[in-house]
């Protein structure tokens, strides 16, 4: 099994045919798309029974790691190759339920399962402190259900199943957010619940309308049939409902207002998990629908898509970054930064070019690395700091220099400094924008200005962590191991090193993102 592609003379990255390579060792390979969902799903009720301290966590982590392993195998199988499909119960595609893993879903699966595994791995002490031990099995069970929902969305090739998994993941996420000790999470999650339900309902209404007009729920089938009923009023309405509903879920500006508080008051580890993948999953569905299914729903769908979403993306980038600069709470600061980063992804997509989509999809991966790492570090900070307020973490760099160094690495990746993963997505995004003509140059300006804003808000954290008071000079560097749980420390550095690794040797995500972009734009290789 090779983890890295080779770059051949024509500059394209080629992978050995993973399937041929893996098949002899993995007789279950054709079942992997189903197993991807089943492993966390079946483990979830089982975890409920594990009451002894720590066991539920261990089982959930094991399931998550197994899901991650499956995702890695799937990614290596489909990269540069045909998608894997799975007919549930052997019913053929338009009638039965189909699961489908292509490059786009493989990349997303890597993000989801990777984020879940690393955060669970490092999160034991932090979660154990936040949750009474009687409630822990329920919490980890909810975690696995959230994971099931996310991966289910990624592998489903069927609009209604996506809705079902979306509800599973949403309901479980509400538990993850509200399950912590912070009572403010309850009001935050209520807002999320209302808005999330509105979003899901919108989506369902849209699906219903499309079903009414085309008589199918299978996405590929829908994409073919919808051109027959293009420009009819129900289909146009459906496109609006679906896009707005998913935009709510994806926290696209100005529908992001549920996000900052939900992230800020959730248990730190849950924030890291959700920040790394939750909104990206919704964005994934949005891109799937708008580029594959709805592309032919109206004669000028692409123009409309770009015309409505590009201004929102730009506003999201500027407003999100701007608010982050003045935020006093570290978790809210990072949450608003997420709003801006979602804007980047949307901006790339709203160019409606292969290069733009490529940048958007690559940024999903790279932003998950950066933001997941940052929130993990926040969890580490909060093992000694009273809260995530900036003044509470003043001087913490002296107490835990290595953890803080990981924060700087992930922060630089968020800014997009060369040598980090974030730089590559920025490079692709700027390149795509420059190809876009005169408007593109203005967009480049937006991207660069918001990078500067990222410098400002990351550096506010750095300065208060290094130079402000609180954790005095009495703390010598040996106490870091005592303060930060070793597993959390390891998890933090796994992510930080991944940020560096994927900044220099990024063949796999780049290849996945490139073919995903080709796939979405309709000329699959």
């Amino acid at each position, binding site marked *: 099994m090779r983890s890295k592609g080779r*770059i051949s003379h024509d*500059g*394209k*990255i080629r992978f050995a045919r993973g399937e041929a390579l893996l098949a002899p060792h993995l007789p279950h390979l054709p079942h992997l798309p189903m197993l991807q969902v089943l492993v966390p799903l079946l483990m979830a009720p089982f975890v409920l029974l594990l009451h002894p301290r720590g066991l539920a966590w261990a089982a959930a982590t094991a399931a998550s790691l197994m899901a991650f392993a499956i995702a890695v195998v799937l990614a290596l199988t489909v990269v540069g190759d045909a998608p894997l499909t799975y007919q549930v119960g052997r019913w053929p595609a338009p009638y039965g339920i189909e699961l489908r893993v292509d490059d786009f879903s493989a990349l997303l699966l890597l993000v989801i399962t990777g984020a879940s595994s690393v955060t669970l791995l490092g999160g034991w002490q932090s979660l154990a402190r936040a949750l009474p031990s009687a409630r822990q099995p329920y919490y980890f069970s909810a975690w696995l259900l959230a994971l099931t929902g996310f991966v289910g969305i990624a592998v489903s090739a069927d609009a209604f199943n996506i809705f079902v998994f979306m509800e599973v993941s949403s309901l479980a996420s509400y538990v993850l957010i509200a399950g912590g000790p912070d009572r403010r999470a309850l009001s935050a999650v209520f807002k999320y619940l209302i808005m999330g339900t509105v979003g899901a309902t919108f989506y369902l209404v849209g699906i219903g309308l499309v079903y009414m007009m085309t008589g199918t729920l299978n996405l590929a089938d829908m994409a073919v049939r919808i051109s027959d009923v293009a420009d009819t009023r129900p289909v146009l309405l459906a496109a609006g409902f679906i896009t707005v509903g998913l935009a709510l879920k994806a926290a696209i500006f100005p529908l992001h207002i549920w996000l900052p508080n939900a992230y800020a008051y959730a248990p730190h580890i849950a924030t890291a998990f959700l920040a790394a993948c939750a909104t990206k999953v919704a964005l994934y569905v949005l891109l799937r629908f708008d580029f594959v299914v709805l592309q032919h729903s109206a004669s000028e769908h692409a123009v409309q898509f770009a015309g409505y979403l590009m201004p929102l993306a730009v506003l999201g980038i500027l407003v999100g970054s701007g608010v982050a600069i003045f935020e006093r709470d570290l978790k809210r600061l990072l949450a608003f930064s997420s709003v801006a980063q979602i804007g980047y992804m949307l901006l790339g997509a709203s160019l409606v070019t292969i290069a733009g989509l490529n940048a958007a999809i690559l940024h999903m991966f790279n932003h998950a690395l950066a933001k997941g790492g940052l929130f993990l570090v926040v969890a580490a900070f909060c093992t000694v700091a009273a809260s995530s307020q900036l003044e509470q973490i003043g001087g913490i760099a002296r107490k835990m220099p290595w953890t803080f160094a990981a924060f700087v690495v992930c922060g*630089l990746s968020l*800014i*997009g*400094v*060369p*040598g980090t993963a974030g730089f*590559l997505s*920025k*490079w692709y995004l*700027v*390149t795509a924008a*420059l*190809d876009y003509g005169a408007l593109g140059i203005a967009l*480049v300006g937006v991207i*660069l*200005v918001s*990078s*500067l804003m990222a*410098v*400002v808000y990351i*550096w506010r954290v750095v*300065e208060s962590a*290094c*130079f402000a008071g609180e954790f005095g000079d009495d703390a010598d560097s040996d106490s870091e191991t005592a303060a930060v749980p070793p597993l959390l420390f390891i998890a933090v550095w796994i992510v930080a090193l991944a940020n560096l690794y994927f*900044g*220099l*040797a*990024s063949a796999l995500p*780049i290849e996945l993102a490139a073919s995903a972009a080709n796939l979405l734009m309709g000329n699959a290789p």
Partner: protein
Amino acid sequence: MSAELAILASLALPLAGAVLIAFAGRIGVNVREAATMLIAGALALIVWSLVPAVAAGERPQVSVAEVLPGIELAFAVEPLGMLFAALASMLWIVNSLYSIGYMRGNEEANQTRFYALFAVSLGATVGVAFAANLFTLFLFYEVLTLSTYPLVAHKGDRQSVASARVYLVVLLSTSIVLFLPAIIWTYLVAGSGDFTLGGVLAGKLEGAGVGVLLLLFVFGIGKAAVMPVHPWLPAAMVAPTPVSALLHAVAVVKAGVFAITKVIIYIFGVEHLAGAFGADLLVFIAAFTIIAASIVALRQTNLKRLLAYSTVAQLSYVVMAIALLTPLAGIGAAVHIVAHAFGKITLFFAAGAIYTAAHKTEITELRGIGRRMPVTMMAFTIGALSMIGVPPTGGFVSKWYILAGAYQADSMLALVTILASTVLNAAYLLPIIYLAWFAREDEGDGTPPARVHGEAPWPAVLALGLTAALTVGFFVFHGAALDIARQLLAGF
């Protein structure tokens, strides 16, 4: 050792050395300082081992990884980079010696962090020097910014944190908003950012675009401190003096003018740029920076800030020389990178020695200090003469070539600027020398000096003596540097 291995070793050694220094710091200060000296010495040996091959016309190169299709992390040694790396690695040894005296003499805190980050900065400097393409250059350029930030903020008090913020914001924002788009533009237009003799843009970018791209590069490379992107340099003076001396008179600022020079020779191509309006504009901008910074320097009362503005002016000498696009001026630019380094590091060493021994930072406090610290002030005098360009100092050599290049280019503007700036240099440096040697210590307000002191600790004095000797020595023994610089003429 093969040349390829030497390139990789010269990059890996300082980075591995930083870790080594961090661990050595836990054992003891002497071990840590010994490790620093050892690593500095080894780096200089490795870098200098490349000199004969490069002087003989070889261009060793090595590619590490392909980051994006067509964009490589790769290194190649060409004459200018060789000169820069050799210079920086050699002065690191002297500077480490000086640091020992300075940091101990002032009982600075966090010295382990200081030495470790210094090693990282040098690694980044060598990376900039050996970069084979714009992407690699940019990568190490940013590493250099980030690794020097904690050195600027070293004291950790309110003033140094605020100044370090200016430092970081100016350098990072220029590089992100201007330098990066310029690089991406270059890759998009030319399909490559490799440093190629004759440039990669000829025939691909014409007209006004050339000028715009050139300005993006010049202002984007904020480390060159062309006005108005210079404020980070005076701000950086809050750092401990060894940082100001090696990094903000040699490594960081020279990385800036080095990058501009490389972009002009190897990305635009001298011939291609000669027809464009951008180069003329650049001469104007550089000339303005020289004069304006010199005038600002006249009004400074703090010694280190005065030296910082002097550096701003001297850096634009290099920019102006290369923008003249004539062979002799090109040589002058390359030689000035070296000559100015020797002179300016001596001046900073002297300023730091004065601070260590006498705790004096203001120029008016320097009355009669030459009698207490004769060696230091002798070195200072030599450095100052080199800045003005008086023989027998290194500054004369480079000024000669730049003037000759200005004649060659028939540029009255450049000629007048150099002459005017020479007068201005003398006007702000000679009064200091006069005060130090000829004024009486108690002439000021009649109070006796607060502190009876002699010279700074011996490592510091030894270091500044060495660089003063180099400054004078370069007047005579600049043949090797000139030979390497002459190889640049292939690009003209």
